[in-house]
């Protein structure tokens, strides 16, 4: 999304998402406990951004998992207005991670009941956590700016970042200034900068202040948050696509009051959901989901934006992580929440758990959008609108473990016969979602015990 151009790195918001494992913890209620483990990086070149919007007030929190030398880090983001010192802050990684985990596509697990007894569902839930860290910047502004038509509107040090706000009158001057200040601007970026200049946008630059970073003791870069008032409900992605080495992923976590957010200049669709897939995928859900996302993008010619989650933050079912407390949501920009304490969603100790708050809900609605983009298929910046749609949706995939007891009654016979049809259906569903080879899926199912008797 953002042009994080610096030295060699950062093909724009090059933030990778890692899937972190969450320990299973048993639950009594209907949505069970977590089992899924996904430790690998899920999507390469993925950036993650939280946007909290209320009226025209917009708080954008940008996170990256930049792992290189902090000296090399630089971030260039077009912003619609000048922002003051108190409109910029640094947010804890954990807060963004928490929202990410909470809204991530999830694996739900059920065990078939004994067909000879009354049905009773035991459930599990797997979750996928995306982990990210923020990207960081480098040096500051110079006198030469004026001669180049660049105006340094403000300079701040916020957390471990040195931040510069620029306005400019001409793109070449700005490109020169950025280059001279140590930002490595990809070829062709000047044109895009020029477009933003004419649209009246300012530029938000961040580099890492090494002393501040040393003081804080943090080994990673924290997400930066910028808040401003603007009618433009958009995210600039164009700088990031200039000379990018291939498509990039972005996960946009929207917090609004009214309802679901969608893109207005690209089609937003729901990711395939509520599909039963073979149980062997339990330990490898991250791989399943990435393969599924890849296949979906390919099928749609990389033209669409995917909805992965849309839900009232007041409750969840099943919860993929502890509910995000109000104070964390406020720190992400959802300042319209009346009570900024940890209610109504204060987590209990003991790991992820089921929360089913009254369906009346809260006044925060979360939307998770996932887009894979490049300059060819996404030439325009993403424009959004908030809708009045409060229907809940989640990317949810279901494992059903067959009953393994004796079940000698006649119903047990019927049950066993039904299994082979079900296994075929699950294999076909997985093949269809991921494009994986059907024979291979069936072989792995058989190895995992999912084989008709």
């Amino acid at each position, binding site marked *: 999304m953002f042009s994080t151009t610096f030295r060699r790195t950062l093909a724009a918001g090059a933030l990778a998402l890692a899937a972190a494992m969450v320990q299973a913890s048993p639950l009594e209620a209907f949505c069970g406990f977590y089992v899924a483990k996904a430790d690998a990086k899920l999507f390469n070149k993925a950036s993650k951004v939280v946007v909290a919007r209320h009226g025209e007030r917009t708080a954008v929190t940008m996170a990256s998992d930049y792992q290189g030398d902090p000296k090399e880090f630089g971030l260039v983001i077009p912003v619609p207005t000048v922002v003051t010192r108190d409109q910029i802050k640094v947010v804890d990684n954990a807060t963004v991670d928490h929202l990410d985990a909470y809204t991530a596509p999830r694996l739900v697990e059920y065990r078939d009941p004994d067909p000879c007894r009354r049905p009773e569902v035991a459930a599990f839930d797997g979750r996928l956590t995306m982990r990210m860290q923020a990207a960081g910047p480098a040096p500051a502004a110079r006198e030469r700016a004026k001669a180049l038509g660049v105006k340094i509107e403000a300079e701040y040090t916020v957390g471990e970042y040195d931040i510069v706000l620029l306005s400019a009158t001409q*793109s070449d001057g700005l490109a020169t200034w950025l280059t001279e200040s140590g930002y490595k601007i990809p070829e062709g970026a000047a*044109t895009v900068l*020029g*477009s933003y200049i*004419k*649209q009246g946008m300012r530029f938000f630059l961040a580099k890492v202040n090494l002393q501040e970073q040393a003081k804080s003791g943090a080994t990673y870069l924290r997400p930066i948050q910028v808040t401003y008032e603007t*009618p*433009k*409900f958009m995210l600039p992605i164009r700088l990031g696509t200039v000379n990018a080495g291939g498509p990039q992923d972005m996960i946009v976590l929207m917090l609004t009051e*009214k*309802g679901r957010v*969608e*893109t*207005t*200049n*690209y*089609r*937003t*669709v*729901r990711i395939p959901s509520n599909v039963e897939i073979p149980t062997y995928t339990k330990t490898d859900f991250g791989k399943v989901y990435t393969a599924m996302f890849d296949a979906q993008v390919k099928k749609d010619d990389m*033209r*669409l934006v995917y909805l992965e989650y849309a839900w009232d933050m007041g409750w969840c079912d099943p919860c993929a992580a502890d509910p995000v407390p109000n104070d964390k949501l406020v720190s992400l920009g959802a300042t319209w929440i009346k009570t900024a304490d940890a209610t109504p969603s204060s987590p209990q100790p003991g790991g992820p758990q089921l929360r089913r708050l009254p369906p009346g809900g809260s006044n925060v609605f979360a939307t998770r959008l996932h887009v894979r983009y490049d300059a*060819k298929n996404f*030439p*325009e910046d993403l*424009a959004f*609108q908030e*809708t*009045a*749609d*409060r229907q809940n949706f989640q990317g949810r995939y279901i494992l059903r473990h067959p009953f393994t007891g004796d079940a000698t009654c006649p119903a047990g016979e019927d049950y066993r016969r039904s299994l082979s049809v079900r296994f075929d259906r699950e294999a076909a569903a997985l093949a269809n979602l991921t494009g994986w080879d059907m024979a291979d899926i069936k072989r792995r199912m058989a190895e995992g015990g999912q084989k008709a008797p």
Partner: protein
Amino acid sequence: MRTNPSLPRFYRPGGDPRLYQIATLSVLLAYGLAALSFDQAPAHVALLLSTAMAVEWFGRLIEGRPFDPLSPLITALSLSILLRASAPMYLAVGALLAIASKFLIRVNGKHVFNPANFAIAVLLVCSDCAWVSPGQWGATTAAAFAFASMAGLVLGRARRADTAAAFLLVWAAILLGRAVWLGDPLAIPLKQMQSGAMLLFAFFMITDPRTTPDRRVARLLYAALVACLAAWIQFVLWRPEALIYALFVASPLVPMLDRVMPVADPGRRFQWTRPVLD
């Protein structure tokens, strides 16, 4: 086609362009529901259809005219394609507003607002109730071509291709001009011109013969004005529903344009069954 004057007009072969319009809108709606997963339940479509029909029937009853299902059908189909609501009640209100506006807001016997446009613009004021999804069609060349082909049939019959062409030309010029000024790649205006929502508007909403000026020159002016207004709303006020608002705001100008630029023979006003003017 003066085959059998005793038949209702719309049954005469080739007689009424609205039949083509209904067929086209039905195809678009079916495609949207089946292939593009529009957020519109079939039950909601039924609700829109039945409400629109009921209000039309009542309005005609009061006026003492025979019931004609074609016009409310077009309005209900348009609303099904465009309008989304947080509760079915708002869809019913939308259909009611649309048809009622046709009976209640008239100047010189001609209704002022395109019924679907009126209902959507009014409902959007309540942002908790309704929205439109400009992105729902995506933007592909194939879809744009299909839209244009189907629209050609309808507009050819209603003789309102001039309005669509004028709007599209001015809109394209604005998008292209903006891109050139910003130094943007051509891919951006090209993509914007393939927007399904915009094409639907150009071919099926702004071209409504009953709510466009009678004289061709006035229609061309009017279409250009709507395009300029829409550009201002979209690129300055940054509202995604720019086209809807622009037409809504410009509609009251039509009676004025009709007065300033009247048709030579007032008896030759547009009628659906005689769609030949100018």
